[in-house]
């Protein structure tokens, strides 16, 4: 059976998600965006092709790429029309069932059970509920267009004629920075079915590949450091904090119950607590306010130079021949630069110095004791 997934991420409401560069569904939470997490859960339920349709508000921040997920940016003004046409295209290209999911809410509905319920009841559209509360997850048969059209034209609002599947599972709204933090906390405290993206360095501490954790930095569980992120000496990451990919925490800074969005750098000696930090702003969760910060000494973008340096380093590691050639050349240079050993008499010109036999040392070295 050809079942496809359609994940919809409409344009974020600027009044509600102030301080975030785009919809929280497209921002990394413990290594993966909620859109990716939903798509992965769909793939695990046997849905092969998943499309993520998002408003083209162009997130500047790098997002991870999962195989088998197609991202389709559309004009935010005609978002629902575009979503409907993509849905129609799925139907025309042979999809027998489409799972439509809008990410105003992140919910962990059991997709397999939802599909089975839909098939058993031969419904046109099945609306998923979670603990008797409606969530924006629908199972739609695209062969009967009329119902699907009304679904998209009503912006996925539930209608009484739809079948209702009442399942259980984790659900949280996904609109504001507070919601983003709540999801991060729930993922790191393992309240969700989905898990942080990478392996655990030790219990409760997840670190992504290529992350640089300097020697004196402290990661206190539960915490997350994303791929290629940097945590400098003396920094502390604690209380469900999440430092996303390519972010940087400078020396001595404490990150407590906070999220550093991808590619964000926080300066040295600071105290980021109960906040979500973007490249030019901080959303304070305690004060429920967004504060713009133009001073790059406090907060800014992680230097793109460090990314290019890492890419070059990775390239050099792959280029074995070049590395060997470089090493040989360096050795030759060292040989040329090494001074000729001076005669023993000249070396002992100072009468106060006593020369010891140098049998155990290399020819260029000698041991001298001051008398």
């Amino acid at each position, binding site marked *: 059976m050809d079942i496809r997934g359609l994940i919809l991420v409409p344009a974020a409401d600027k009044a509600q998600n102030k301080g975030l560069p785009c919809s929280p569904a497209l921002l990394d939470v413990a290594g993966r965006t909620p859109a990716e997490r939903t798509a992965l859960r769909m793939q695990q339920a046997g849905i092969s092709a998943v499309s993520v349709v998002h408003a083209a508000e162009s997130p500047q921040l790098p997002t991870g790429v999962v195989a088998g997920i197609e991202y389709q940016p559309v004009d935010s003004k005609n978002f629902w029309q575009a979503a409907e046409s993509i849905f129609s295209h799925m139907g025309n290209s042979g999809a027998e069932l489409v799972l439509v999911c809008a990410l105003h809410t992140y919910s962990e509905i059991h997709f397999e059970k939802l599909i089975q319920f839909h098939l058993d009841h031969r419904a046109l559209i099945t609306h998923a509920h979670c603990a008797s509360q409606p969530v924006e997850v629908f199972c739609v048969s695209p062969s009967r267009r009329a119902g699907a059209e009304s679904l998209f034209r009503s912006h996925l609002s539930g209608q009484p004629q739809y079948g209702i599947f009442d399942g259980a599972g984790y659900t949280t709204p996904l609109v504001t920075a507070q919601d983003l933090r709540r999801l991060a906390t729930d993922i790191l405290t393992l309240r969700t079915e989905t898990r942080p993206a990478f392996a655990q360095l030790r219990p409760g501490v997840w670190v992504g590949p290529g992350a640089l954790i300097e020697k004196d930095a402290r990661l206190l569980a539960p915490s997350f450091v994303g791929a290629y992120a940097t945590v400098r000496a003396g920094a502390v990451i604690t209380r469900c904090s999440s430092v996303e990919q390519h972010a940087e925490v400078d020396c001595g800074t404490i990150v407590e119950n906070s999220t550093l969005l991808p590619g964000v750098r926080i300066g040295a000696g600071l105290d980021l607590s109960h906040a979500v930090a973007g490249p030019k702003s901080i959303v304070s969760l305690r004060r429920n306010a967004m504060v713009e*910060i133009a001073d790059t*000494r*406090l907060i800014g973008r992680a230097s793109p130079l460090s990314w290019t340096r890492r890419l070059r380093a990775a390239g050099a590691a792959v280029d074995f021949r070049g590395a060997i050639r470089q090493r040989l050349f360096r050795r030759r240079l060292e040989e040329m630069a090494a001074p000729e050993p001076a005669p023993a008499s000249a070396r002992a010109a100072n009468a106060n110095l006593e020369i010891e036999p140098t049998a155990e040392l290399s020819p260029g070295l000698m041991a001298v004791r001051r008398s």
Partner: protein
Amino acid sequence: MSTNSSRPVVVKRMPARVDGRTAREFLRDVQPFLTTDRPQLVFDLSQVQRLDAVGVEMLLRCMSEAHKRDGDLKLAALSTQAAVVLELTRTERLFEIYDSSTDAIRSFSGFLPNAMRLQFMERRRPPATAA
């Protein structure tokens, strides 16, 4: 500027944007008050919309100057922006912060004399006699 019976308390409203240039100008304005004997200053931060590291350094410098001359600098009516930046830079714990300028002014006249009054009363209290 507000005065009480002893020494004046200077209240200065900080500009909306406190960056390098405005911080220097502000410092120049308050310098005469900082160099007096035992200065008592209150900075009103209600208008502050943007505060950066230079602004925070300027506040610390003013406080240090005031302390050198046995005075004090208190902050009042912090805007959300100012409060978040002071928390971020861990400097909010260095200042006495009040909800309004009036409260800050009152704290200068209220706290120290009360403490002194208690000391004075203890000194004057007659020693307890054994029954």
